[in-house]
């Protein structure tokens, strides 16, 4: 099976999802990665086609289209990210290809691709079968990025050769203020979700974080309410935590959130025993964080003396 990977580049850096997709592609057969912005692609394993079309932009689907016409892949892989989904959805309509989204597992067959997706807020697994050529939009963290790294053999193709462009114009990046803590670099993260109840209770999480030598983060609803700054958001549209411990307090574990959780150990506390967060936890407690956390804080204090 021939697989084309859409390599995501943001701000001149190849994103981790790219390597994950390459890892997936390699399991399925021959892999070619397409990158549409300038970046150091040398660690991407296998063939890399590099087109310098500027910063990430939704109209790049037209570049992918041209490359697909030339390379004829059976399967095109995209990451389930803000940048890539724009391109995947336009491409699938333009080229009339079936597309599976929210995918966590891809299998190849004869003239068909099987994909498993997690939908309905994590409550249902859907097994899909697509006739090739097909597109799969894969969730971040479904495959091991390390397995997609190696050495690249790069082909540069100029934009003029392809003869495409569109009217959506990239203006600039808007970076978050650098002053706040970078949770993606923290070893220990104490994260709060809707279950924290209200802003006043975040103090409690901060106390716990301090005792453990970590930082406080939150899921989207907490940030939307304005209880924590955007830089503390964990998830698809926030940051990815990769440290030693992610302590999820009152977080249900929706897919968009869990995508940002790549810590080595996850401990979750939630009153709902069916909360999807438990599926990725090393250890879980069905309890009310408002009851459990103060007790935990007291005990840890005792231990630390």
């Amino acid at each position, binding site marked *: 099976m021939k697989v084309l990977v859409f390599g995501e580049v943001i701000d001149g850096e190849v994103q981790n999802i790219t390597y994950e997709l390459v890892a997936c592609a390699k399991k399925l057969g021959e892999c070619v990665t397409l990158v549409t912005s300038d970046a150091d692609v040398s660690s991407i394993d296998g063939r890399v086609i590099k087109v310098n079309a500027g910063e990430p932009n939704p109209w790049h689907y037209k570049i992918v289209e041209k490359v697909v016409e030339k390379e004829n892949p059976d399967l095109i892989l995209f990451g389930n990210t803000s940048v890539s989904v724009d391109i995947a959805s336009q491409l699938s309509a333009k080229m009339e290809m079936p597309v599976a989204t929210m995918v966590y597992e891809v299998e190849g067959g004869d003239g068909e691709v099987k994909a498993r997706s997690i939908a309905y807020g994590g409550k249902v697994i859907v097994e899909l079968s697509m006739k090739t050529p097909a597109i799969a939009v894969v969730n971040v963290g479904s495959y091991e990025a390390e397995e997609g790294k190696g050495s690249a053999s790069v082909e540069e193709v100029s934009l003029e050769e392809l003869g495409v462009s569109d009217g959506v114009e990239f203006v600039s990046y808007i970076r978050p203020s650098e002053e706040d803590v970078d949770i993606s670099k923290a070893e220990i993260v104490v994260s709060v979700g809707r279950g924290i*109840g*209200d*802003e*006043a209770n975040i103090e409690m999480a901060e106390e716990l974080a301090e005792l453990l030598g970590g930082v406080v983060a939150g899921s989207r609803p907490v940030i939307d*309410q304005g*209880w924590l700054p955007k830089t503390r958001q964990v998830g698809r549209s926030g940051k990815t935590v990769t440290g030693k411990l992610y302590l999820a307090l009152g977080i249900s574990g929706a897919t968009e959130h869990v995508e940002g959780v790549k810590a080595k150990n996850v401990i979750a506390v939630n*009153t709902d025993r069916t909360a999807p967060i438990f599926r990725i936890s090393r250890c879980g407690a069905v309890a*009310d964080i*408002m009851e459990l956390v*103060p007790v935990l804080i007291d005990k840890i204090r005792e231990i630390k003396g």
Partner: protein
Amino acid sequence: MEVEEMLETYYERIGEIPESEKFIQCIQCGTCGGSCPYGMGTLFTPRRMILAVRAGIVKEVLDSGAQWLCTSCFTCSLRCPSQIPITDAIIPALRELSLLEGNPPEELAAALMNIARYGNSFRESPRKRDRWIKEVDFDVPVMAKKKSADVLFITECFGAYHRRCKEITKAFAKVMHLLEVDFAILGNEERCIGDLARLSGEFGLFEDLAEKNIRVFEKYEFNRIVTHDAHAYNALIREYPKFGFEKETLHHTQFLYQNLEKLKEMFGKLDYTVTYHDSCYVGRRNGIYEEPREVIKAIPGVKFVEMKRIRENALCCGGGGGGVWLDSFIKEHIKERPAESRVKEAAATGADVLVTACTLDVPMFEDALKVTGLEGELEVKDISELVLEALES
């Protein structure tokens, strides 16, 4: 909305509430603000609100958020020399304007939307409203099957879904079971009784809830309603009759008092020093002071002590009038929550147990114990939990 439209809407709404014309008699004495648990944290005490509205100044009041700094404790209304219905009219009608503007505090907005959509403020399925009956070791009949009973037990939302309040519901259900009371619950057919919606300015939602609940009541035969939720009790005796509801309603303290002779024969001994919190909508609003005290004092071994602020002067737990859903907002304006002040007061009496009469009290006070560091020194129990403990000891 323009100011004229706001004032028109405001006057139209308070015009529908009995006695509200008395606001013209406001003599600006300031008793209301002086009595208010949030008086020191608000830019507009009820006195200033009335003054502002009379002067046609509405937007500034709404922008200050003062209308949300109210726990509907009724102290101002009770003490007002002009008998202005501040709690039931002045403030809810102002809150309604905020709702029409579309920008109430978010937590409360979500709670109100959940009530409209799911019949409870917790965003839980209405079909799970009677899950608590699976957690007790005796049979709790549901009206859909039983069709008739002597007593209809209304659990209300907190009593049905809130982890701590469910314990109170279970305790009272067990007491009724031990008393061999013929009771039943509505289970999934019960919707939020709605006092929270009414006091939050969602008059339309309240009306809808009342009408829907009354239609369900009419399906079954029962002699009276008993509830442990003081706000549900209040809505049922004062508001629901306006929509045609005519059955007798008792608060569970009254019910326990009515059954006191029987209970006395069954009480074991408890070794507690107990103080009693006059929940706002049991005591101050609805005049029930003696019954709970008699019940508590009837338990052998219990030593009863009074706090300083009792009966109509009791300090609110802060949970009413949407308070349970406004904590973030309120905390921005005051240093110490009323519940925190109250538990300190209870601890100062030397009591081991603070007994309460409204479902909302217990989680509010237990949270306050954590914040004030009094956990372990003082326990909070609903009166039905105390009674059950006495019956089982």
